[in-house]
């Protein structure tokens, strides 16, 4: 039996040599996205750890996801997950929704972000495109108070219904602030 480490290195080398020229790369995905939706739709385009990430606006997000769901070149037909994020320091764009789309055929992922003010946390729902968005959006509403316009049943999902705040927002500390026996003065942040 040959050394598996060497073997796999050799396998990788052949894989690189035989790279399919038609393989969908992030650059091609981005070019196609800009062709479909205009070059100025996407800002802050990055590739952290190989995953194409782009920021867009809440006005465009529904249209983008809907078009991609029926689009036949990229085949981004799978909504992997979505989640809210809270950045209290960013004036005017405190809240964010992050969408992960996946093309199961081409094996390319796409991360889309939108930012919007916490005073007006209204974004369009994706439930009319993906049935799976239903509970994900309820979760984001539950945790961050993001209102999904058009959602059929926007109520809390994991927390109790009579909770009157959105606990994942960063102003709510995890531990009781009045406790004196657990000081984080020297270590931790």
């Amino acid at each position: 039996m040959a050394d598996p480490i060497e073997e796999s290195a050799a396998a990788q080398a052949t894989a690189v040599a035989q790279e399919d020229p038609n393989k969908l790369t992030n650059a091609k995905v981005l070019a196609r996205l800009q062709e479909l939706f205009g070059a100025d739709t996407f800002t802050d385009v990055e590739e952290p750890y190989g995953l194409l990430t782009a920021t867009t606006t809440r006005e465009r997000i529904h249209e983008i996801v809907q078009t991609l769901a029926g689009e036949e070149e990229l085949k981004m037909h799978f909504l992997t997950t979505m989640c809210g994020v809270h950045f209290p320091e960013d004036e005017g764009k405190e809240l964010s929704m992050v969408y992960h789309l996946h093309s199961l055929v081409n094996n390319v992922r796409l991360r889309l972000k939108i930012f919007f003010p916490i005073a007006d946390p209204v974004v369009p729902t994706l439930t009319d495109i993906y049935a799976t968005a239903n509970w994900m959006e309820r979760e984001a509403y539950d945790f961050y108070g993001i209102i999904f316009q058009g959602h059929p049943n926007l109520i809390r999902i994991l927390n109790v219904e009579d909770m009157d705040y959105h606990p994942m927002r960063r102003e709510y500390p995890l531990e009781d602030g009045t406790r004196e026996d657990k000081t984080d003065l020297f270590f931790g942040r």
Partner: protein
Amino acid sequence: MAVNDTLDGTHKIVEEARDQHFGLNVPMLNDFSQELTTLNLGPTHPATHGIFQNILQMDGERIVSGVPTIGYIHRAFEKIAERRPFYQITPLTDRMNYCSSPINNMGWHMTVEKLLGVTVPKRAQYMRVIMMELARIADHLVCNGILGVDTGAFTGFLYVFEERENIYEIYEEVCGSRLTTNMGRVGGMERDFSPVAIQKLRTWLKRFPDVMREFEKLFNRNRIFMDRTIDVGGITAEKALNYGFTGPNLRATGVDYDVRAMNPYSSYEDFDFEIPVGTKGDTYDRYLVRNAEIWQSLRIIEQALENLPEGPFHADAPHYYLPPKQAVYKNMEALIYHFKIIMGEIDAPVGEVYHSVEGGNGELGFYLISDGGRTPYRLHFRRPCFIYYQAYPEMVVGQSLSDAILTLSSMNVIAGELDA
């Protein structure tokens, strides 16, 4: 007359209390004009195998509509994770899908390794593969065994549960614990496989195929089992994809999406295995796919154990990987690193990373945003159960109650993963 008044009064109270509590607008009254009955399946029903509720509207034995309520064991893991250093988040992941904790643990470790840019040596990767596939087998055994129990056959469940017990003994030998394993560390495993662990693993590998064959013999062509499961709780591939299904439930519909093959992690590209798929996506297909996956997992374990490379069992990453305790007492550098890691003086890179592994139930994803501190800025778990359980009402409408129970157990909804 008096009885009817009391009944009406009771119904009204129940309805009001419910509306107040859940804010739902489903009719709660037992509407005798339509002869529909409201049935509470759960939260603590023995057949749900977990704490979640389904409020079913029944027309006789048929289900007209269902409203799932979840969150009974929500433990705010995403919030807690924002206050925990990376290595303290591993125990949180244990408690998500507690039927296959090692997969969750290692998925999380690989996420952090991706963020930190740590490369894990081959031996550690193979060790991880062995443990993850054992976990997958244990997970599938529980699911299929319990499916048998729900059809009325207790024998198979008891028989394979012994093998799950043996898998847990291997866990115990590898990491010291059984159910919530907290196995491995960021950077590799915390210790090498002991000779006893290897020996237990080999004994189990020899013993298990016979058990599995007998289990399959009990169920696969069993007339009663087939009658109970074929065409029960089916879903089409299009619907399944639309609902975000992954894992065995998606593969049972005929879509061959498996993270292990599509985005190989931890050296899965080195192993030869097949992705079993079903055709109809019904309960019987889900059962068969899980069984076939157990055989494939066995193949992977055998290959990994056969070709287990020599070498270190963890990455050379002293900034992130705790030094051995003996060294901490004797060695200056080890003491410094130990202190820095435990006290959170190590800075992580700023960035965001998504990593997914094939969990027992599907694509288990970790979306981590790091602001450079010792804890994640935001950590989101993509929990396959949470995502596919929302299709449950649609899958059971029109079925009888006893079939709905089978659909539920064949989907393998784990309450810990559902609620995080």
